[in-house]
C-alpha cells in the first residue's frame, strides 16, 4: 500500500516535472515583473523623484488681478514634495498636452472671471482632465483641487471682506486698493507658510511592516496564487475513467488526492523557493528597496521558503480544490485566475487591506490568501505568527478534505 502510494506520487511528480522548467522560467519572469511593480510603487512612495511635479495648465487671460497672486502662490506649493507647476497655454495646446500626458489637466478661466470676482461673484472654473484613475494625482485630485479652491477663494474672501468693511465703516476709502494689494500679498505669505502650522512627528513603523514590506508580502502571495495556472493541463481531470479504475483496485480517492497533491506541492515548493529567495535577495539586499528585508540574514532568507510552508500548504490546497471542481481546461484556467485575483484583491495583495471597508478587512482574515499575506508580513516584521501557522494548516487540511469528497463523488457519478 505504501509502496503503491509512493509510486503514484512519483508518477504524478514525473508528470508535473515535465512542466517544471517552464514554470521556473515563468517564475523568474514574474520576479522581474514584480520587481518592476514594486520599485514603481516604492519609488513613488518614497519620493526618490524629489521634485516630481504635477503639471497643470491655465488657459485664459488674467493680468494684474488678485487671482494672479493666488496662482503664483500655488506655483510654489511644495508641502507634499509634489509641486504643482502651472503653465500658460492656449486651449488647443493644453488639449494636445493633455492627450500626450504632459499635463494632468488644464483650467479654462473665462475672460470675465476676474471682473465677476472683483464684484464678489466668484464663478466656476472648468478643469479638464483625463481619468486613468490609478496614480496618486488621479486618486487625490479632488482633494488637491479642493485645496486650490480653498486657498484661492478663502484668500479672496478675506480681501473682499476687508474691502467691503472699509467701504461700509471707514470714512476714508482712498487707500482701500493699496490695502487690498498689501493684504493679498500677505495672504500669499500665509499660503507659503501654511505648512508651518503642522508639527509632524514620525514615530516609525516599529514592529509593524513598512509600506514597501507590506506590498512585497502582498505581491508574493499574488504570484503564488497565479502559479497554479501552468499546472492546469496536468492536474485538471477531464476524464474520470482512470480514477474509477484505480478506485476499483482499492486505490481510494483519498490516496489518489494525496499522491497528486503531494506532487503538486513539490512543484510549488520549488517554485516558491526560487521566487522568495530571488525576490528577497533582490529587493532586500541588492537593490535595497525594502528595508524590512535588508535586516534578514542570508540564512534567514534561505530558510524563508521553509518558514512559508504553512502558507504554501494552504494556497496549494485551495488551488488543488479548484482543479478538482472542473473537468474543462478553459473553465479551470479562468477559475484559477478569477479566484487568484478576487482573493488577492480582497486580501490586501493589491492595495493595503486598510484601504477596504471593515467588512472586507474582516473577510480577509478568514481567507487562505489573507492569512498567507498576514503570515508572510509577520515573518518579515518578526511578529508572532503561531496563530497564522495553525490557521493555515487547518485550512489546508479542510480544503484537502473537501477535495477528497469531491473526487469521491466524481468517481461515483
Amino acid at each position: 500500500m505504501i509502496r503503491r502510494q509512493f509510486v503514484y506520487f512519483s508518477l504524478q511528480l514525473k508528470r508535473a516535472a515535465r512542466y517544471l522548467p517552464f514554470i521556473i522560467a515563468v517564475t523568474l519572469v514574474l520576479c522581474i515583473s514584480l520587481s518592476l511593480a514594486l520599485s514603481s510603487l516604492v519609488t513613488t512612495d518614497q519620493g526618490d523623484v524629489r521634485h516630481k511635479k504635477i503639471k497643470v495648465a491655465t488657459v485664459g487671460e488674467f493680468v494684474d488681478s488678485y487671482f494672479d497672486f493666488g496662482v503664483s502662490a500655488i506655483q510654489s506649493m511644495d508641502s507634499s514634495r509634489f509641486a504643482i507647476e502651472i503653465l500658460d497655454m492656449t486651449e488647443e495646446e493644453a488639449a494636445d498636452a493633455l492627450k500626450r500626458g504632459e499635463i494632468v489637466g488644464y483650467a479654462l478661466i473665462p475672460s470675465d472671471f476676474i471682473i465677476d470676482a472683483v464684484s464678489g461673484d466668484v464663478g466656476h472654473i472648468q478643469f479638464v482632465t483625463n481619468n486613468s484613475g490609478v496614480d496618486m494625482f488621479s486618486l487625490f485630485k479632488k482633494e488637491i483641487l479642493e485645496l486650490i479652491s480653498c486657498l484661492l477663494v478663502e484668500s479672496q474672501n478675506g480681501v473682499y471682506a476687508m474691502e467691503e468693511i472699509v467701504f461700509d465703516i471707514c470714512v476714508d476709502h482712498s487707500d482701500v486698493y493699496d490695502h487690498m494689494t498689501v493684504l493679498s500679498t500677505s495672504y500669499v505669505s500665509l499660503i507659503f507658510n501654511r505648512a508651518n502650522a503642522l508639527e509632524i512627528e514620525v514615530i516609525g513603523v516599529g514592529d509593524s511592516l513598512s509600506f514597501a514590506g507590506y506590498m512585497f508580502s502582498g505581491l508574493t502571495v499574488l504570484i503564488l496564487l497565479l502559479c497554479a495556472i501552468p499546472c492546469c493541463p496536468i492536474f485538471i481531470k477531464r476524464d474520470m475513467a482512470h480514477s474509477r479504475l484505480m478506485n476499483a483496485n482499492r486505490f481510494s480517492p483519498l490516496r489518489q488526492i494525496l499522491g497528486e497533491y503531494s506532487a503538486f506541492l513539490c512543484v510549488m515548493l520549488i517554485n516558491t523557493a526560487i521566487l522568495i529567495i530571488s525576490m528577497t535577495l533582490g529587493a532586500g539586499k541588492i537593490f535595497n528597496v525594502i528595508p524590512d528585508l535588508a535586516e534578514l540574514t542570508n540564512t534567514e532568507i534561505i530558510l524563508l521558503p521553509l518558514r512559508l510552508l504553512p502558507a504554501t500548504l494552504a494556497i496549494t490546497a485551495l488551488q488543488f480544490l479548484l482543479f478538482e471542481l472542473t473537468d474543462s481546461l478553459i473553465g479551470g484556467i479562468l477559475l484559477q485566475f478569477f479566484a487568484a485575483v478576487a482573493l488577492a484583491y480582497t486580501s490586501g495583495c493589491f492595495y493595503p487591506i486598510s484601504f477596504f471597508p471593515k467588512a472586507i478587512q474582516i473577510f480577509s482574515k478568514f481567507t487562505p490568501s489573507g492569512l498567507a499575506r498576514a503570515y508572510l508580513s509577520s515573518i518579515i516584521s518578526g511578529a508572532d505568527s503561531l496563530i497564522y501557522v495553525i490557521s493555515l494548516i487547518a485550512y489546508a487540511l479542510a480544503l484537502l478534505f473537501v477535495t477528497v469528497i469531491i473526487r469521491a463523488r466524481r468517481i461515483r457519478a
Partner: protein
Amino acid sequence: MKKIITFFSRFLILNKRILKKKIFLFILLLIPLSVVCLAIASTSDAGIITIALAAEDISDPIASEIINDLENGDSLIRFVVTDSPDDAVSLVESAEADGAWIFPENMKEKIAEFVDFSSERNRFMLIVQREDSVLLKLSHEKLNSTLYPYLSLAHCEDYIYDNLLTTSDISSEAIKQYYDSIDAEGADLFDMVYASGVNANDSEQNYLLSPARGLMAILIMLGGLAAAMFYTSDEASGVFDRMPRGRRFAIAIEYHAVAVFDVAIASLAAILLGGLSVSFLYELAAIMLYMIAVVGSCMLLRLICHSNRLLASITPALSIIMAVLCPIFIAPPKILILQYLLPPYYYLYSIYKPEFLGYIAIYSVITYAASYLVYRLRSR
C-alpha cells in the same frame, strides 16, 4: 451570405459546447456579481489611509467643528474620532491608524498667534504618523484645506485690527459676517470635466473599483489563452482532420472568439452594473474592438508557442506583466515596446482617449496578418 450563416451557426455550436461546462458558466455569472458586490462594498466606510482625530479640549468649538466636518465629509481618507490624544497616538503605534491629528486647546487663540505677523509662526497642530509616505503628505493638504478658512478669517481680522479699525469699530463676529457673505455659494472653484466631455463629478468612481475594468481586461485575455489551449487539444485529438486545411484559420478564429466573446459580454455587464461605464455605446464599441484584438493576439501566441505546456506556463507571467504595464493599479512605467504588444494597454486608454480605438484596430490588423503568416508557414 451562406458562409456568414455557416460561421454564425458554428459559432453558436461552439458556444453551446463551452457553456455546457458548468464551471465556465459559473465564472461568467460571478464576474458581474463580484463587481456589483465590490461596488456595494465601496460605498461603505473605507479610505486609502486612516487618520485618528483627537482634540485636547473636546469642547473647543473650532476643533469640534473641524472634527465633525472631517468625520462626516466625503474623502479618500477614513477618519476615526478618538476620545483623547493618547488614544489617537495608540492607534498609530498599533498600526490601526496611519496618522493622528491632534487639535490643541484654545484653537482660536492658537490660530490668531499663527497668523500674527509679529510673532514667529507657531506650530499648533500636532501630527503623529508612522511613516513619511506620499499618501500621508497628500493627507496634510486635506488638513490644510480644512484649517485654511479659519486661518484666512483670522488673518483678515488680524489685518483689519492692525491697520484699519479697532475692536470698538467692528467686532470679530461682524468681520466674520462680512467674510462669510462674500462667498455664500461655497468654495468650490473648479468643475472637473473629463476630456471626453463627461462631467467628472457625475461619473466619479471609487478607488476600490478603479482596477476592476483592468482586471476584467486581463480576464478576457485569459479567456482567449484558454481557448487557444482548447483548440490545441482538439487539434491534437484530430477534431479538425475532416475539415479542409484552407478553412482551419477561420475555424481557429471562431474557437478563440467564442470564449473571448462570452467573457467580454460578462465583463460588459459587470462594467454597466458596477457603474463603471462612460457610455453604453462607447463601452460596447471599445469592448468589441478589444475582443477582436484579443482573438488576434491569442491566435498569434498559440501559433508561436504551439504547445499547451508553453501556453499554460506563460499565462501567469503575462497576467502580471499586463497588470504592471497597463494602467490598472499603478501609473505604468513607460516601456512602450512591451506595452504596444499588450491588447489591454490600448483598451484601457481607449476609454478616455478615443484615438486609442483606432490603435486597437491597427493592432488587430497587424496581429491577424502575423497570425495568418505564421499559420501559412506552419502549414507548409
